[in-house]
């Protein structure tokens, strides 16, 4: 397996996730916190983050249909929980243009949560097209392709503990005609 260099080590990620968890615990103390996790890329981050939030909270999951399979976004898996009146925190792996997350926020707001905010491990704010309630950011990153720590390439590499960067011109993988999971590059 040939991967690009490590961009963030597992230890660096663990430290930052711990800081995020402590900050979220302070902000949501005494509130009805629900972590909403879009599948699949966010799951590694979400499970680590959840264990760092030392207040009572719940987890729920949803999955959006991939682009190109219909005329509009559809939920492949909806939330199990009723989110009305609850404090919803969407746990994302990466935010860039924000178009997908914007759709998700609109959908969730229709269900009248008490509050809605976003925590993301990685952020590319310079690529943002729509305004989003991103309250917590792990790392602001350059416009690169990442794998590991939940980020995949054709459903591979999610399990790697470190976050690696692929550079398109180094030939670590053949990108041409490759179809990758959106989490790897979104």
């Amino acid at each position, binding site marked *: 397996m040939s991967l690009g260099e490590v961009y963030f080590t597992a230890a660096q990620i663990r430290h930052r996730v711990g800081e995020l968890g402590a900050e979220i615990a302070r902000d949501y103390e005494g509130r009805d916190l629900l972590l909403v996790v879009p599948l699949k890329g966010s799951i590694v981050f979400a499970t680590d983050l959840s264990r760092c939030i030392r207040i009572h909270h719940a987890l729920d999951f949803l999955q959006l249909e991939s682009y190109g399979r219909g*005329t*509009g976004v559809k939920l492949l898996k909806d939330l199990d929980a009723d989110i009305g009146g609850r404090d919803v925190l969407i746990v994302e792996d990466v935010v860039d243009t924000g178009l997908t997350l914007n759709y998700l926020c609109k959908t969730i707001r229709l269900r009248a949560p008490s509050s809605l905010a976003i925590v993301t491990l990685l952020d590319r704010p310079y690529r943002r*097209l729509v*305004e989003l309630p991103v309250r917590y950011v792990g790392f602001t990153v350059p416009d690169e392709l990442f794998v590991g720590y939940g980020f995949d390439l054709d459903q591979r590499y999610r399990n790697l503990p470190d976050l690696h960067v692929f550079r398109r011109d180094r030939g670590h993988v053949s990108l041409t005609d490759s179809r990758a999971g959106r989490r790897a*590059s979104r």
Partner: protein
Amino acid sequence: MALETHDFQAFRGTEPPRFANRAELECAKILDYYGVPWEYEPRTFVLEAGEDGRVLEAFTPDFYLPEQDLYLEVTVMKQSLVTRKNRKLRKLRARYPEVNAKLFYKRDLERLAERLSVNFEA
């Protein structure tokens, strides 16, 4: 270039859009897919005018997103080759500081299309 027709749901313009290339069509489809209202080339900005008022340089961004009050210019060129479009954007911002405009790169399209290589020449 004959581009496929598409029944757009989030299009907010009046005249049916006539896209100049495949990348613009792909961008429109993606905006539509994610339910982001859009217009196609609704406004031309004068960047330079002669003393007689004649327009010397103008810029018509490809898309306008009314909910975001944002103009988008699509480019499928490599980011190192977008100097000309960036220069136009800088001139636009200097002359119209109230206007919000961004470049929409090939990589943005690829990310949203969930693939690493989108063939815009097809």
